[in-house]
């Protein structure tokens, strides 16, 4: 296909999309009006299941199966990253040298670490009551752990991060979601139906299966993000390509065994 034909095919497709998109936009209800056909039904269903946070009710009750798909996407993405970024046979590990951290940065990060971790866990636990939930809280908690990398050192981060545990945690989070769904089937209802007692409105124990599914997603997301960042950090900080620290411009063709002697102290530990 020549460039000219390709351009015309693209223009035809773009014009078709523009027309359909414009028609669809004119068919939408006006922005910010009082008429919300889906919203009214969702709020009603959410209140009848004692879930104060309607978004959580939509995600984990009305459309829990949808969320299972989204969780599986994250799970598969992390799994793919783990496979792609594993240590290749001709790569070797090199312990990064500890870096000096400005005391003020260290103090601030160490102060924020427990605070951010607590916020993450709070957001996971209160997903059925206030905005947030498993995904949001999970990402906040996982990011909070990495404040240790900023405050102290890569090795300090590795010490609080037994990677195998997080890999197991990721799989366990995914499994817990499916098991909760299957438990509803065993209880004589549909897959992922809300079968638990609904509890008191706007308390931690409200919402039936919503907090359970939130906890499952929270576990999966914390573990998934930690594993994901660990793989990227491994690649950037620890794993060396053959001849990576050779330094000379013609170093591409040098042998794979010259890595550990060329400790020329270039700024390998530069902060990412």
């Amino acid at each position, binding site marked *: 296909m020549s460039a000219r034909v390709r351009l015309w095919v693209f223009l035809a497709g773009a014009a078709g999309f523009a027309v359909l998109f414009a028609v669809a936009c004119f068919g939408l209800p006006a922005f910010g009006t009082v008429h919300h056909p889906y919203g009214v039904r969702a709020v009603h269903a959410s209140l009848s299941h004692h879930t104060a*946070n309607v*978004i959580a009710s939509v995600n984990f009750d009305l459309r829990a199966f949808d969320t299972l798909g989204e969780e599986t996407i994250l799970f598969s993405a992390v799994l793919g990253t783990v496979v792609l970024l594993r240590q290749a046979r001709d790569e070797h590990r090199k312990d990064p040298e500890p870096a000096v951290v400005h005391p003020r940065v260290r103090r601030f990060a160490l102060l924020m670490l427990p605070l951010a971790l607590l916020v993450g866990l709070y*957001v996971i636990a209160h997903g059925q009551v206030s*905005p*947030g*939930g498993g*995904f*949001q809280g999970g*990402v*906040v908690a*996982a*990011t909070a752990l*990495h404040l240790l990398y900023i405050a102290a050192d890569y090795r300090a981060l590795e010490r609080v991060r037994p990677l195998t545990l997080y890999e197991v945690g990721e799989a366990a989070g995914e499994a817990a979601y499916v098991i909760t769904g299957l438990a509803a089937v065993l209880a004589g209802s549909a897959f992922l139906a809300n079968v638990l007692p609904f509890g008191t409105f706007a308390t931690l124990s409200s919402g039936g299966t919503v907090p359970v599914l939130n906890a499952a997603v929270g576990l999966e997301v914390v573990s998934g*993000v930690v594993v*994901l*960042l660990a793989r*990227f*950090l491994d*690649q*950037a900080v620890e794993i060396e*390509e053959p*001849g*990576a620290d*050779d*330094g*000379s*411009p*013609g*170093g*591409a063709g*040098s042998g794979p065994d010259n890595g550990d002697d060329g400790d020329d102290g*270039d*700024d390998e530990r*530069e902060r*990412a």
Partner: protein
Amino acid sequence: MTDVLIVVALLLVAGAATAAVLNRDPVRQALVLSFLGLALALLFTFLQAPDVALSQLAVGSAVTPLMILLTVRKVRRRPGDGDGADQRAGRER
């Protein structure tokens, strides 16, 4: 009042997104992307979607830029390349 805040947030998002496109250096792009995440989180908050804002704040302004920075660091550290923190983005080896 809310309309004003929404317009301000929209302008911030447009400005940050344009800056991210115009920047040629991936490291700087990652930092601008982090600011874009912050602006988007603000916009979502003003549009009464705090759930989405929370995700955007964590993923868009922390995790994604960090992953880009780590990737840039790994890719640039090649034989004979030095650390190359100040090299041009599209330089070919």
